[in-house]
């Protein structure tokens, strides 16, 4: 022993007889003490991430394993978490139904919608479904009904959760009985609310969403007058939120009669519009008591200058 070896211990030189067997078995220059193999392993493990292309440090798991002194404590902590007094049991939470956000879509499918507008609308419905479906909580909370008006007023899709929503095939025909459609939509909504009450389901303020490319053809009928007064009353009493959207040659003054929230849409940007609707419904269905929501305005709105 020349006394300059790597990791040489300080202190008086021990005779061979005084050393333990452990030190006899390995070369003192390479393995200076019993921690040698462990340090080497630690060095290897520490370097591994660098060798495999990670530039700095290593993950928390490796850290826990490598920093030997702490690992036992870490494991105990992990075990303790498993044995918390409030550990999971199968029925620990009440099986409450999710709060619902009912949405009625009133869609104009009169003859003038034939062709590209209808195809865009159909695609828009799919976008709405996909967007709403993508969020776990929103999927369970938003419910959609679709009423079309074109010649006749049809409930093409009654209220279902987004999970079960299949966008209906739309067919363009006839004139624009908008007043009737509004009444139909509102009565569907009332039925749904009663259903919620009967089953003790909490709900958010429903949304009514009207989309048209023309002017109502039933303005001379009592239905139109009634529809206007019901929408206005509902808005004042905060029973629902009514949005009116017009495209192309839509009679915006009629939409203005119904609600302050009426917008002229550029072109047939239905996909973007439904994307906005799904985002807004998502925000609503996650809102908590006393929350005032600041929703962004709908996209592609024409503003008169």
């Amino acid at each position: 022993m020349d006394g300059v070896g790597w990791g040489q211990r300080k202190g008086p030189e021990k005779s061979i007889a005084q050393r333990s067997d452990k030190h006899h078995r390995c070369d003192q220059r390479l393995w200076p003490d019993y921690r040698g193999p462990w340090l080497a392993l630690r060095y290897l493990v520490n370097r591994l991430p660098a060798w495999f292309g990670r530039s700095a440090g290593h993950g928390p798991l490796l850290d826990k394993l490598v920093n030997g002194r702490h690992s036992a404590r870490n494991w105990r902590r992990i075990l303790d978490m498993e044995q918390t007094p409030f550990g999971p049991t199968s029925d620990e939470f009440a099986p409450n139904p999710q709060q619902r956000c009912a949405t009625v879509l009133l869609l104009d499918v009169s003859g003038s919608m034939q062709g590209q507008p209808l195809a865009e609308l159909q695609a828009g419905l799919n976008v709405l479904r996909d967007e709403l479906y993508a969020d776990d909580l929103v999927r369970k909370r938003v419910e959609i009904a679709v009423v079309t008006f074109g010649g006749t007023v049809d409930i093409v899709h009654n209220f279902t959760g987004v999970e079960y929503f299949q966008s209906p095939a739309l067919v363009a025909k006839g004139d624009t009985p908008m007043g009737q459609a509004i009444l139909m939509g509102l009565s569907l909504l009332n039925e749904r609310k009663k259903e919620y009450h009967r089953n003790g389901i909490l709900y958010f303020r429903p949304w009514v969403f009207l989309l048209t490319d023309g002017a109502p053809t039933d303005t001379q009928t009592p239905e139109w007058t009634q529809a206007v007064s019901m929408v206005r009353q509902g808005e004042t009493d905060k029973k629902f939120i009514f949005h009116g959207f017009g495209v192309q040659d839509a009679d915006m003054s009629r939409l203005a009669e119904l609600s302050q929230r009426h917008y002229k849409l550029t072109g047939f940007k239905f996909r973007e519009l439904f994307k906005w609707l799904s985002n807004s419904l998502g925000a609503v269905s996650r809102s908590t008591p006393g929350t005032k929501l600041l929703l962004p305005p709908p996209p592609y709105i024409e503003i008169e200058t």
Partner: protein
Amino acid sequence: MWRVAGASIAGTSHQRSSVPCQDYLEFLRCEIAGEPALVAAIADGAGSAALSHVGAKEVVKALVSAVGAANCAVAEVNFAASQSWFRNALVHLQESAAREKLETRDMDCTALLAILAERHAVFAQIGDGAWIADANGILEPMTWPYKGEFANETKFLTSPGAIDSMQFRKCEQPLTAVAGFTDGIETLALNMVTKTVHAPFFTRMFGELEKCEDDTSLLSPLISFLSSDRVNERTDDDKTLVVARRVGTGQIRDELA
């Protein structure tokens, strides 16, 4: 003697948008007219109010100190007396708002109060959240969350007529266990359809509370439970839960046994 554990944890939606936890909870062991009692108060600040977390704290502190300083026995407490405590808290809130040059509605919050004495208990509440209690081995709601027509509507201490329509419940019998919580816990702990308490949520907690040696040993399991993924899957709102269990020996405990 009551063993108590309670905590407020910010909801995941609040964490995401860096909004502070708007719930506040405080409990106090004191003597009311010579009788040992536990006073607990909870408030949940409105999401729409910018400083509702401050409002919640002010209201809770005002309620706890008013009740702690009361000089009428818990057996004598009635609706009017409780109303006066809530009115004090409201005045305190209005004064704090005026001092800071704020609108009172910037500090909107709900308010829940419980006073547990040896043989009597009083529960009062404005807004949502609830108190539940174990009376004769059955878990019953003492108050029920107030909801407007819509799920995201409730009443706040500052709402017009809130104090007149305050919920009040007085128990003339000794209770073995009590829990109070804000709306973040509501749908986990209450069956909203049958309007009953979901007992499995509490039975285990009350059991553990009875077994543990002191108040603090259950605090960290409670916090990790409230922040656990399985709770967060069900609620993204702030969560406050306070659980109290009667412990120790005494005449009342023997009677209850």
